[in-house]
């Protein structure tokens, strides 16, 4: 990892720890020794389908971060059932591919994902889940997404 990327990630981490944004659980094991991959807990907001449920997001940063988007997937035993989240943890969210800009951050990605969860009207995976999970690349950034519905 380049110095510049490490510097930026340290700043992001400190920011997250001081601000401690509602709905996010910052893993205390993220240290400067392993900045390349972070795990962050997200807690479903009150009054939504996922209220109180805790999910884990895994961020993997490439050497070109923040100029390229991080790879972000849900990991662990519980992957939220959501029309834009596949059962293997891949997330269909435009800012994670085409619409990424270096002005975005780990925090803004987490908050987008939280708001995506909050606006969900039913707990189910995308209709093409079975075929996608079978055929997709391990790295979701290799997927050419069609963003079918911006309203969720």
């Amino acid at each position, binding site marked *: 990892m380049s*110095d510049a990327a490490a510097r930026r990630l340290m700043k992001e981490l400190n920011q997250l720890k001081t601000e401690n944004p509602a709905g996010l659980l910052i893993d205390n094991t993220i240290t400067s020794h392993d900045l390349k991959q972070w795990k962050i807990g997200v807690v479903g907001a009150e009054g939504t389908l996922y209220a109180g449920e805790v999910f884990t997001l895994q961020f993997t940063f490439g050497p070109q971060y923040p100029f390229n988007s991080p790879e972000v997937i849900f990991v662990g035993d519980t992957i939220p059932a959501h029309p834009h989240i596949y059962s293997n943890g891949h997330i269909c969210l435009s800012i994670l591919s085409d619409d990424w800009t270096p002005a975005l951050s780990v925090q803004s990605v987490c908050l987008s994902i939280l708001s995506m969860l909050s606006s969900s009207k039913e707990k189910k995976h995308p209709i093409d889940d079975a075929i996608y999970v079978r055929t997709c690349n391990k790295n979701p950034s290799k997927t050419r997404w069609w963003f079918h519905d911006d309203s969720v």
Partner: protein
Amino acid sequence: MVNDALENQPTTAGIVTTTEDELILQDQQMKRIEDEQKASPLVGEKMPCATLVALYDQETAPAFFEKANELAKVYSHIRFIRGDGNCFIRAIQVGLVEILLNDKERLVKFIASSKEWTERLVKLGFPDWTCTDFCEFFIEFIEKVRDGVHQREDVFRIFNDDNTANYLLMFFRLITSGYLKEHAAEYEPFLDEGMSLAQYCETEIEAMWKESDHLGIIALVRALNIRIRIEYMDRNAAPNGGTHHNLPDGHDNATFTPDITLLYRPGHYDLIYKAPLAETSKPALPTVA
């Protein structure tokens, strides 16, 4: 990106299924393009314009050969910039910092306006700390130039280091976007129907490795308050009918003195320079007998 037609398609509409082989092939192609790009430095050395002429064969590319020769009569040097989608912005950044290295007064003013830009961006609602991080990085760099911590050779070393160079470049992308957003009413009508200015700025200006189009070019020139000339070296004439285009528009061609001159070849910008006056006109100094 809702598309009604797609909504009614069967289950595979969610993704474009690409086979593993196709993906590998695409990756290889991308890698090759990247390798080709990386073979040339981000910012090249200043070279005599003869290097440009030498790129074209009189037989196979007569139009380009002739234009290169015409340019070589007016311009003495060229600095090649890597063609990675950032070339316009990078060329402007390098050209401007070169001026500032030799003009302390302008440098001091420029630092002040860069600091103002930080505030303007925050006021425009840019994500606060990620944006100010890029601003601070740039201001720190340019202040080190002012204080002599970064000498000329340091500046070019930094411009050629991918990581630092991208941070510096990002500041110019942000002020380009900021300028457009401040003048949204003026520029929004130029966008394709259905695209908002905010969307355009996010996907075309603020994202790295996206080529600058006319809107991005004029916005950066105005945001920096500089004058540039673009010499066109393609089969078509410049937008105003001549061989070059001055920006901002509305200046008398005869009296226009650009700060920076760029050479445009299809899809790409490099920096070009006129010889210092003393060299071209070879003043007839009285010789001591």
